[in-house]
């Protein structure tokens, strides 16, 4: 395969930068995007000024307030960010149609073969940065390399406003000294395990004995070995849709009441299922996320035999997952959330059959119960016409009034 040219673009402190751009008085100040009133929420993004105080995204808001008492806390305005994101993606589209949008402020571009038009990867990256700076008054960091892993790694090396190429000859000097946690697919747990095995840097992984490590790490060994040696064949997949749809709620007070948790889940499932249907996808898996008061977070998955976009099977599944967590009265829950993943376009899955029975009631959680589908279709059309508040489940009514 010919060598590709992949760009990874990541906006710098995106939400915070947009706010600072739109409100000049915020410039130079530590701006923290988080619900100011929801002390128990987490930080979405913060400006580089705030990062100097040790604040980072996903940190509890209360902790951010302690670290940076003079910070400017701003509630996120997702509509605005999404509009800016669209403008940014439009700029990228001038250079290549092969754009894989990773999130609102991040994308891969495969610019292989565009050199004649726009110059080499570095030139193109510079032009894109200039466009974004001139038209949006924002800065981005871009990594240029020959695969996705290295491009993404590069964009992060000199943030903000970075422009870092990684060529095959840079691998040893620039990549190998980096810690293993920079490897794609290596989380905190795997990192600990690798460290115990004596692997600290990407260079260590690149030289490890794969056969031996396979016995400890399984398939992860091959995966990281290839990455560490600069091999990553994953293509840039344009028009990629959301990988998951989720909803989570952080409670103002820790919750010990399972029924209340279930009701919360039901509300979340309703929203998730509606978004799922709007996107035209069906989900194969549903994940329950629970955060206990001591900030311990667990997730539990359920995989459906047949993908679904309906409330009933989703709710039955997450309720079952919650029951499996075996919450006792001592367990206080701080956050609960539902995410659906493994999305597949609706109607693309091979059909399934079910023999009907005279005496046994049909299983209530069939992933594609035609009557449920019809119900959801009617509910959706009502909500489309009159707004989301027009119809809800009786069980959720009191909560919304409160």
């Amino acid at each position, binding site marked *: 395969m010919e060598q590709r040219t992949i760009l990874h673009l990541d906006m710098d402190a995106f939400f915070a930068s947009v706010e600072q751009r739109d409100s000049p008085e915020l410039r130079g100040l530590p701006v923290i995007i988080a619900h100011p009133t929801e002390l128990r929420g987490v930080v979405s993004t913060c400006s580089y000024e705030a990062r100097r105080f040790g604040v980072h995204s996903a940190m509890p808001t209360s902790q951010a307030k302690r670290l940076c008492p003079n910070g400017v806390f701003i509630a996120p305005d997702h509509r605005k960010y999404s509009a800016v994101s669209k403008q940014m993606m439009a700029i990228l589209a001038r250079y290549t149609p092969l754009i894989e949008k990773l999130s609102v402020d991040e994308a891969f571009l495969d610019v292989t073969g565009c050199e004649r038009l726009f110059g080499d990867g570095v030139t193109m990256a510079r032009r894109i940065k200039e466009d974004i700076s001139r038209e949006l008054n924002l800065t981005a960091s871009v990594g240029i390399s020959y695969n996705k892993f290295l491009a993404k790694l590069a964009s992060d090396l000199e943030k903000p406003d970075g422009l870092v190429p990684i060529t095959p000859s840079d691998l040893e000097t620039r990549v190998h000294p980096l810690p293993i946690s920079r490897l794609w697919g290596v989380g905190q747990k795997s990192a600990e395990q690798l460290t115990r095995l004596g692997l600290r840097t990407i260079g260590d992984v690149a030289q490890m004995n794969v056969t031996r490590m396979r016995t400890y790490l399984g398939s992860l060994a091959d995966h990281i070995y290839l990455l560490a040696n600069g091999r990553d064949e994953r293509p840039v997949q344009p028009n990629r849709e959301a990988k998951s749809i989720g909803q989570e709620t952080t409670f103002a007070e820790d919750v010990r009441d399972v029924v209340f948790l279930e009701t919360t889940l039901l509300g979340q499932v309703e929203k998730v299922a509606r978004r799922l249907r709007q996107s035209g996808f069906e989900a194969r898996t549903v994940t329950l996320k629970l955060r206990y008061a001591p900030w311990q977070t667990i997730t539990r998955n359920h995989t459906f035999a*047949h993908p679904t976009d309906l409330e009933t099977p989703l709710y039955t599944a997450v309720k079952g997952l919650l029951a499996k967590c075996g919450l006792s009265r001592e367990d206080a829950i701080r956050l609960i959330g539902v995410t659906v993943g493994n999305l597949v376009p609706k109607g693309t899955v*091979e*059909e*399934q*059959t*079910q*023999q*009907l*029975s*005279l*005496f*046994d009631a*049909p299983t209530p959680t*069939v*992933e*594609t*119960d*035609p009557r449920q589908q019809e119900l959801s279709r009617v509910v959706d059309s009502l909500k489309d016409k009159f707004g989301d508040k027009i119809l809800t489940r009786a069980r959720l009514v009191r909560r919304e009034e409160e």
Partner: protein
Amino acid sequence: MKIIILKNALVQAIQNVHKAVSSKSTIPVLSGIKMAADESGLRFTATDLEIGIETLVPTLIDDEEIVQVKEAGAIVLSARFFGEIVRKLPGKTVEIEVKQNYLTIIRSGKTEYNLHGLDHEEFPRLPQVAGNQVFSVQSDILKDMIRQTSLAVSSEEIRPVLTGVLFTLKNGNLKFVATDSHRLATRESIVEAPPEMEFTNVIVPGKSLNELGRLLADNDVLVDVVVAENQVLVKMGHTQFYTRLIDGQYPDISRIIPTTFKTGLTVNTKELQGAVERASLVAKESDNNVVRFNIKHDRLEITSASPDAGKMSEPIDEIQVNGDELLIAFNSKFFMDALRVIDSPDLLIEFTGSMSPFLIKLPDNPTYLHLILPVRIY
């Protein structure tokens, strides 16, 4: 005990009772066949405690001597050895003599066997079926009723009552119902019964009925059926058949059978049978053997498909359709089972929607009905 019997009569008698011999009982005597000789002839009995069969070989049939009883008595012989041996015996007659310690000598031609028998006193007595609940039915009709319904019994023990065929009698009308909850077969017949005789919820094990069906002759001789508290006795000439009944309440099926329909079609049995059979060849067994009917106003299209094998379609134009067009999917095995026991040249099929049971009826025989639940595709 000492007797001489015609070999053919002996072979036939063993064959009659053989089906009741227990194949996996822990009680040794149940793996045997009991023979008891007295002045009336030689009586053969076998039972697995679920069913019991008793057949008498009389001393004389039409003045021909069949059995000569020289000394009355009884013995139990292993069905496996006894059956095999008797079939291979060289002579026209067989002499059976029981000596001490149940040692049994079997002589035929120049052959002599010495078999170890078992004490007949240990052999369970067949229940004395008392009761005046007796009705009479032609052997061939009873046989047909069994054939047309027993295929629909459930093979799963989760709901024991569904492993049996429900017998009901009212106003001289005998009705059989069997269902495994995915399909249901019913057959009725007028029988000779006392006018006041009536019963419901008599559940006869399907397996027992299959054995009974084998014993029943294809003629119009009347057989007597005695219905008692927990067993049924069927008397056919010199042979009697007992079966235990299944405890429990049979589900109410009166509201299950639709009385109206939205789509009705009349079609040639053989043509449809062939088409469904051909369609089933590419249907996936693990996926309910799904075959579809696409019913239009003037034609019926039979289709099936499986991702691995491929697909099939076959139209039948020579049909009569009343009512709505319909697309329905069903298990082709159930359909073929139903057609296998139908002798009418034409079929009437009545549908009430793609998620509702459909009925197979016979235009020339209103006493038969077969219901099949469709398969939901999602």
